[in-house]
């Protein structure tokens, strides 16, 4: 199974790579900086809204966390509209939300480097959160599938496309039973490992 992990200048991307390899049998993960593969201003050669890779070369795309807001990371549109499975983590989830017209706002008090227990697909697990911003309004076609006690969206999914986002960090050492979240994603995308 080939996974393209797109790095948004983050410092947890290698943790995510190691988690994907651990939890997905036979996973081969390529990590690329977003500015190398997306049609954004920093990448003049691709200014005609083209991705620098063929989406059919990969089975799954993962958008890493990262500093800042979705508007700082333009160029994900063609990937999100390609029909290929995309899992967004933290900023990655906010990028998906932004693409469908959702609103990202400052989260009162922020939440960094701490865990919170959430209900997720029949589980009650402590998840690590690192975020200053949150999905205040979810975009069209997106659904909140898990939220915390304050109703801050913790996981969103598209109701037609294979797009899934986690606001929390399954790759953190603080997150309990991270495999649950990877298994759920594969199941949601209809990716079978055999």
């Amino acid at each position, binding site marked *: 199974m080939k996974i393209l992990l797109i790095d948004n200048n983050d*410092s947890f991307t*290698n*943790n995510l790579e*190691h988690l994907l*390899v*651990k939890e997905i049998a036979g996973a081969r993960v390529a990590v690329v900086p977003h500015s190398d593969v997306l049609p954004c201003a920093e990448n003049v050669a691709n200014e005609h809204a083209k991705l620098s890779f063929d989406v059919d070369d990969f089975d799954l795309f993962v958008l890493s966390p990262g500093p800042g807001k979705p508007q700082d990371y333009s160029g994900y549109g063609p990937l999100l509209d390609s029909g290929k499975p995309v899992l967004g983590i933290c900023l990655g989830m906010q990028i998906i939300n932004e693409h469908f017209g959702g609103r990202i706002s400052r989260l009162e008090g922020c939440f960094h480097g701490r865990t919170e227990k959430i209900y997720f697909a029949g589980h009650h697990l402590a998840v690590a959160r690192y975020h*200053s911003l949150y999905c205040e309004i979810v975009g069209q076609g997106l659904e909140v599938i898990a939220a915390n006690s304050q109703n801050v969206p913790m996981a969103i999914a598209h109701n037609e496309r294979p797009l899934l986002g986690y606001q929390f*960090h399954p790759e953190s*050492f603080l997150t309990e039973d991270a495999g649950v979240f990877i298994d759920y994603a594969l199941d949601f995308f209809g990716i079978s490992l055999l």
Partner: protein
Amino acid sequence: MTTPSIFSESVCFDRFREIASHFVKLHNADVLLTSPGFGECGQSFIGLFPDGELVVCAEFLAVSSVDSYADSIVLDVKDFAFSDDRPTIGYVSYECGQAVRSVSTEKSTQYPFVHLKKYKAVLVHDEAESRVKCLCADDELTFSIAQEMQEAGSIVDTDLPNISIQDVSMSLNQSEYEDGVRDTLEYIKDGLTYQLNLSTMLSLRLDELDPAAWFFALNKNFPAPYYAMFQSGDKHIISTSPELFLRVEGGKVTSEPIKGTLHFDDYYPELEDELTSSPKEDAELSMIVDLVRNDISADCKYGSVIVENHKSVFAVDKLLQMYSRVRGELAEGRDCLDLFFNAFPGGSITGCPKKSSMELIEKLEPHGRGPYCGSVVVINGPQDMVSSIAIRTAVYDQTTKDLTYWAGSGIVIDSKPEAEYLETLAKAGKILNPSQS
């Protein structure tokens, strides 16, 4: 390839420190010195009679040339360190970290990016075994070093200079530092950083300082595991660091990030609970643990990266410090310098996410960090290295008589500007007010 002639004899730590002091005074030796009681970090080194050095000088870093320049630094360091099997000792500056992380700066620096040396002889002391051995290819020199070791006298107790804060100029004074904390809190709210290490630079002229006497007196009075005294041109780098950046032993990787600080006057055990039960200090450390996991994962085998002893506590300089141990195993085809430069500078002194935090630090701090927040390193081979994070670090310039020291604090969303300033001053305590620290 040199085949070292080795002698090995029984020497306790205190005696080794006297020997180190002797060789520094007589031969300008470079020294990496631990202190007793810090567990497995108990190796000390004396580098004698340098016969090779690598100085990678800082240039003005134009944005466009940053990446290629970084690659050439790594290659140069590997060529030098792995050219033979002798130990390499030296330091890497924070500005080198800016170069390898592609963070552009317009500040000029008076410190080389990298200064490494090889020596005709290196004395290695192992605290646990109470033994010293000499790595030297020259039998005659080995013999004379053994002779000279006998002559080393005791270290004369000297008073530490008591420096008045009024004589010190600070790159960020109290109100500027607190403004920096407030700016950082806004960056945190914007999601540009979760934690950012903000430092200030303290400088003063100190005509009468004997840097070697000062170094050994500090080591005696303020034990810490990663002391180092390294001569770089006219400058003495004097590091009293308690923090391990990376240790690689036969390909096994350990990092021990420190985050969470509690200043105390009299120690009692409940203080440790006060530190470990603080949600703020807990979050500070947890973030950096995830960051360090990330940083070593780039060169470690899949599945090998683990966290041990999360939220351990130790005391140093009248501060309780919390730390964790992150371990991993070098991946096939990777060496300790791949690891070093992919993980550099250490996450505990940048913040997280690293590159974004470093870009903000560049805006917030008017000073360059130089050796501070860089690393003092001994490279014993492609799979063996010990490197500290050069915090609690000073530079004494023998020509200008300027003493420069830096101190900083990790800013998170719950940080209070004044408290962070006071923590920063506490970390400068052993320099500013040694008699009260």
